[in-house]
């Protein structure tokens, strides 16, 4: 269980998160949606220790994560697929995968695990020797997810996995997420593409200007007028030009 309680994060004088509280149970898939600058990436960075917490608590199975070094948090099975993928472009695809599998000391176990994960990503398997910087955006996203899976995560945090991808690739990424969900991996998905996020998760939080504006099950929120209002910050019914949540700013 991951619990975030009244979390505040600041960048100097700018307050990025203002009292965020949320929970994610084991095996659950939860999304956080909201417009650009809402603080979604910051939330994931705070959970993984990338940015310091100004106030509030983050606990995983009852243990505080606040103030812990990033590598210790990763060691607990919390893995982030960052926005723009964070691929090591100067390393080969195989070396990127080895970075994910670094905790596995036994060479044959490492090879088996890489082989197992690559069953999900056949396009990557064909490009193991290629520099990762030469993969397409969709292939890089697959590599980023594959690499994170090799850390054997208990919770997988995904920051805008569909960003900048062609529609076909977005379909593929979401198919992979559905399979991971089926395998019981806990997912925390950050997305601007609200409809996709609702389809892919059990529950959803709407974040705007560092605050949670709305939360509920994905089924409840799908099509609910207050969902669009919370996302955009105005009554959607009074603004007929901005009724679609797909590709929201």
């Amino acid at each position, binding site marked *: 269980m991951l619990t975030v309680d009244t979390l505040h994060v600041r960048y100097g004088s700018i307050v990025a998160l203002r009292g965020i509280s949320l929970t994610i149970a084991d095996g659950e898939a939860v999304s956080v949606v909201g417009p650009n600058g809402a603080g979604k*990436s910051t939330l994931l960075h705070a959970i993984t220790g990338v940015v310091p917490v100004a106030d509030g608590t983050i606990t995983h199975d009852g243990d505080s994560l606040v103030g812990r070094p990033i590598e210790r948090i990763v060691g607990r099975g919390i893995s982030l697929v960052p926005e*723009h993928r*964070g691929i090591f472009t*100067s*390393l080969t695809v195989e070396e990127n995968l*080895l*970075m994910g599998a*670094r905790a596995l000391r036994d060479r044959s176990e490492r090879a088996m695990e890489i082989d197992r994960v690559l069953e999900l990503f056949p396009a990557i398997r064909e490009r193991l020797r290629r520099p990762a910087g030469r993969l397409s955006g969709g292939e890089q996203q697959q590599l980023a997810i594959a*690499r994170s899976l090799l850390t054997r995560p208990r919770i997988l945090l995904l920051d805008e996995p569909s960003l900048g991808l062609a529609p076909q690739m977005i379909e593929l990424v979401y198919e992979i997420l559905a399979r991971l969900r089926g395998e019981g991996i806990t997912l925390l998905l950050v997305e601007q593409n609200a409809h996709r996020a609702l389809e892919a998760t059990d529950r959803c939080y709407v974040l705007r200007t560092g605050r949670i504006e709305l939360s509920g099950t994905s089924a409840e929120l799908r099509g609910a007028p207050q969902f669009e209002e919370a996302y955009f910050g105005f009554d959607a019914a009074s603004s007929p030009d901005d009724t679609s949540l797909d590709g929201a700013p």
Partner: protein
Amino acid sequence: MNEVLQAAVDAASVGGIYALMALGIGLIFGIVRLVNFAHGEFVMVGGYAVLLLAGAPTVAVVAATLIVVIVLALGVERVAFRPLRGAAMPTLLVGSFAVSYFIQHVVMMSYGGNTVGVDFLPRLSKSIEFGGVSAPALQLVAIAITVLLLAGLAFCLKATRFGIEMRAAAEDLRMARLMGVPTNLIIALAFAISGVLAGVVAIVYVAQIGVLTPRMGVQPALIGFVATVVGGMGSLLGAVVGGFLIGTITVLLQVVLPLELRDFRDAFLFGSLFLILLVRPQGLIVVRSARERV
């Protein structure tokens, strides 16, 4: 033809030393974004270690010098640079200069500021002739050591787990941490390697010039830094290329400049490097570091 071959040997010798300096500086910059001007003082302390151990068997001098410089590099990382980790670039630069001056003055307090002579490996100063080219044996040994060291380091960076992690950390330290790479260990390892590189430069440099001063590391560190910039900051291959390029330009200028202008060789050297940077301000080899918004 012989002149070309002679110039090539000279360029490989001078460029090799610059490449090792640049690699030591570039490795640390790549991972912690710190321009370690104290790297020159690592070389200088290595030189004084050779002086202290003069008379002992060569193997012992070499081993002890390398150990002294590695310990110094690790100590500087732990005491001075680790507390500054993540600080702004100007803070890191001032910290780096402070460490550099501190070490210089500690040595000055012990040995004074004057030049001290040291006669290390005198038998290697004898010239060897081959294919119409004459070069001191030490120059050839220096080239061989440089090649072996660069090949060994390239192998370690490419084929070992720590090497892959170090390259990953050099490209994007935060992402490497998100893969679970232990920052302190990988940075300490980088400093240890930079210590080995500085120690080797110290041994070769002292054997070549035969004199020591507390400021002897300043010029090589400056050249090493320039080589990393010309080669492309953050690129280890770029650092090596930059080092060899500066060595080659230095030797070429020595050959082509009229006698009365040779005293001003460095003006032409840095002028040509400036021109290179005008054409490629990002350096010869560019590493695309991942950046993401928060």
